[in-house]
Structures are given as structure tokens and as C-alpha cells.
């Protein structure tokens, strides 16, 4: 593997891992707060799954960097600066209400199942193997969150109003999921990844009809077109974060940073 391909791959793995980590952390914030006991347990499970997936990607990254499996992920999670995180803004946003969290999780799960279905065919064997493993759990996540979105959308006037409000707020952030990262072209030409445009159109073909079916109005068809209203972010680079990430990391990193040498 040449150095530009290796660099592109490590940036890609970092993006995958950081998305899962930050979303998993957001999900964990529902623990003890979800509207139903059963769903409290389900969301804690989701949080654990996402953080577990993050660990899978961080471990691949450790392999690529020749670093220790055990120490390296912790170092990345607890001691990295905000500017070095590569997650999308979608997962940073505070949890909001139940409709917001559920819809965000649904949109992300759909993106992940689309990505993973393609990644199982990656020419990079470790990526293909990890994708195959994670994909099984994501199929279940998708089933769970899509079931909820459908019920909220077709439920009461109140649940539909909240879900629509959540969609209006979240939709502009979805474009960033498909933003190109520097070096992505090397990954595509090496057969490591499918082109982002294919993922994006597959995702939209799945998500838009579903949301319409749930009685929702999908704000605009495509992220990059609606420049007039300014409602839609152009796909931002993954280096751009909202102020929410700073608050989230301050909490997430606070304990290990109190005593970096502590042995757990």
C-alpha cells in the first residue's frame, strides 16, 4: 500500500470511528431518560453497539499505524483535540426530543447499512471483514429505528408535528455524510470504497420514499441545490464542527484527563 493510499485509508477509518463514537455517546445520554423503560434499555444497547463499532474501526486504524490495539483507541478518544475529530455534525447535535433522536438514528442507520453493504465488497480485506460483522447489528438497528419513525409519523398529530420539526432541522446536516474527504479518490480507484455519489443516491432512494410514506414532507430533494433559502448546508468538510462537539468532548474526556497516567 503506497503512502497516499495509506493516509486516505486512515482518514476514512477515523471518520467511520468518530461517527460511531459520538453518536454512541449521544445515545448513551438517553440512559435513564427514555420515555419507556423498554426503550431506555434498547437505546442503551444501541449506544453500546455504536461504541463497539467505533472500537472495531479504531482497532483497524491501530493496525494500519502499527500501534497497540489496547492503548491506541483510548488515546484517540480521550486525548485528541477537537480539530482532529472527523465525525459529521449530524451526530454532534444535542439529543433534542425523542422524535429528533430517533429520526437522527434512523437516518444514520440507513446511511450505515448502505455504506456497509458496499464495504463488504471492499478490496481491502480487513475493511470488508469488519463491515460484514458490523452490518448484522446495523440491520437490526435499522429495523428498530424505522419501526419507530413510522409510528411517530403515522401516530398522533403531536408525534407527527415533532417528527416533521426534527426532519426540517436534521435534513440539512445529512449532506455531510457524503462529503468527499481528501484522498477519497485513491480509495475509490483502489477498489477500497464505492464512489460517494453512488452511496448518496442509494441512500436517498431508500430514505425519501420511506419518509413520505410516514406522512412527512421531505424539505428538499438534494443538499447541494437549494442555495436560495440557505436552509441546506453545502456538504461541509468533516473538519468542520458545531460548538456542540466541544461541550460533548469536555464531558467525554474529563475523567481520563484528570489523571492521564492512571491505570484502569
Amino acid at each position: 500500500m503506497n503512502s497516499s493510499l495509506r493516509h486516505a485509508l486512515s482518514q476514512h477509518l477515523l471518520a467511520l470511528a468518530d461517527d460511531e463514537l459520538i453518536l454512541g455517546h449521544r445515545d448513551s445520554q438517553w440512559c435513564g431518560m427514555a420515555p419507556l423503560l423498554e426503550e431506555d434499555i434498547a437505546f442503551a444497547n444501541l449506544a453500546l453497539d455504536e461504541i463497539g463499532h467505533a472500537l472495531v474501526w479504531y482497532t483497524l486504524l491501530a493496525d494500519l499505524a502499527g500501534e497497540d490495539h489496547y492503548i491506541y483507541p483510548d488515546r484517540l478518544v480521550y486525548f485528541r483535540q477537537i480539530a482532529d475529530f472527523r465525525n459529521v455534525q449530524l451526530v454532534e447535535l444535542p439529543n433534542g426530543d425523542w422524535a429528533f433522536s430517533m429520526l437522527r438514528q434512523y437516518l444514520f442507520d440507513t446511511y450505515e447499512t448502505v455504506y456497509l453493504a458496499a464495504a463488504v465488497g471492499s478490496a481491502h480485506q480487513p475493511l470488508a471483514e469488519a463491515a460484514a460483522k458490523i452490518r448484522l447489528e446495523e440491520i437490526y438497528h435499522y429495523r428498530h429505528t424505522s419501526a419507530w419513525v413510522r409510528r411517530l409519523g403515522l401516530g398522533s398529530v403531536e408525534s407527527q408535528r415533532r417528527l416533521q420539526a426534527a426532519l426540517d432541522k436534521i435534513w440539512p446536516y445529512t449532506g455531510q455524510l457524503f462529503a468527499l474527504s481528501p484522498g477519497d479518490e485513491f480509495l475509490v480507484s483502489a477498489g477500497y470504497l464505492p464512489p460517494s455519489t453512488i452511496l448518496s443516491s442509494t441512500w436517498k432512494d431508500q430514505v425519501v420514499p420511506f419518509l413520505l410514506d410516514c406522512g412527512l414532507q421531505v424539505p428538499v430533494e438534494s443538499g447541494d441545490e437549494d442555495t436560495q433559502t440557505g436552509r441546506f448546508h453545502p456538504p461541509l468538510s468533516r473538519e468542520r464542527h458545531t460548538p456542540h462537539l466541544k461541550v460533548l468532548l469536555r464531558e467525554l474526556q474529563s475523567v481520563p484527563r484528570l489523571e492521564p497516567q492512571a491505570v484502569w
Partner: protein
Amino acid sequence: MAKPDTQLPRFQVFLQEKTGQPHQDVGSVHASDPEMALLNARDVFVRRPECTSLWVVLADAIFSKTAQELEEQELGDKGLGDEGVKEESGEVENYYIFYKPKPTGTQTLVGEVPAAAPVEALRLALERFSGDKPPSAWWILPARRVLVSSPDDIESMFAPAQDKKFRLSTDFHTLTEMRRVKSEFGGQ
């Protein structure tokens, strides 16, 4: 005055650990409908133990009788069992028969019978499945009300749990460690 119940309807959950073993009652979940109940049952009951199949059924759809109730009252017209009438479709259909072998036992699937009503299904069950020692309680489930996980669900719903480390709280040696810290720092 009792507060109104604001929880969603209750569904009973039955789990089969391995192929060939009977489904057994593991508890209940609240849910808006059977599909959500099945998903909730997975999250609440299948995170750790082995599982190959899950059933959920609305708790109100279970026709239930204890051995004591059967002793005290004749099973028949206008007698015991008429409260189960709401589940009758009038047609002959399949009923799953569960029983609890001992008062401390677990409701376990023993078979199924075709019947026109739950009370008739119980009568047939008493003849066929009582054995030498009569069970302590019976549950009769109309098969059409039971939502069954599909064999295709095993891979995504149940299998991933098997790869996860399961640690008992004692694995963390918290007590020993806290005692050590306490003795080292004088327990102030």
C-alpha cells in the same frame, strides 16, 4: 381512586434458547403493537443469553388457569373459562399449550391443539398433556395472536450477542479493590 394506566399494552415474551428446546416464558414488555413488542423483547431479553426464536403475544390474549382454579370449579358452559370468550373466533384454530410443571416452575410450551375456543383447547390439553403429575398452571395462546420471529432474524437479532463479552459484576473485583484502597489510605 386508582390512577389510570398510562403504560402501553403488555405482551408476554417466550424464548427458545436452542433449536429443539421448548419456548419458555421469560417475562413481559410493554409495546404499542406486536412488531414493537418483538423488538423490545429482543432488547430486553436477548442481549446476553442464547436465543434462536422469540414469541410475543398480547398478555390479554392468554387464557390462563391454575390447577387450584380447575379443582374449585367445573370447566364448562357458564362456568370457568367463559371469560375467555372474547378471544373466540368461532372457527376451529390452533392454540399453543403452555404449562408450569411445578408452582415454582416456568411456563413451557408442551404442544398445540386445534379447537373452537380457548376453553375447549384447555379441555383437550388436560386430556393430552396432564401426565402423571398435573401441572400447576396452564396458559392457552391462540396461535394467530402470537408474533413469531423469523429464522432470518437470527443473524441480525440474536447472533451478535454471542460475540460479546459477558461479565458478572464480580469479575471487576470492585469490592477487593475498594478494600485495598481503603486500607492503603486509612479509610478516612
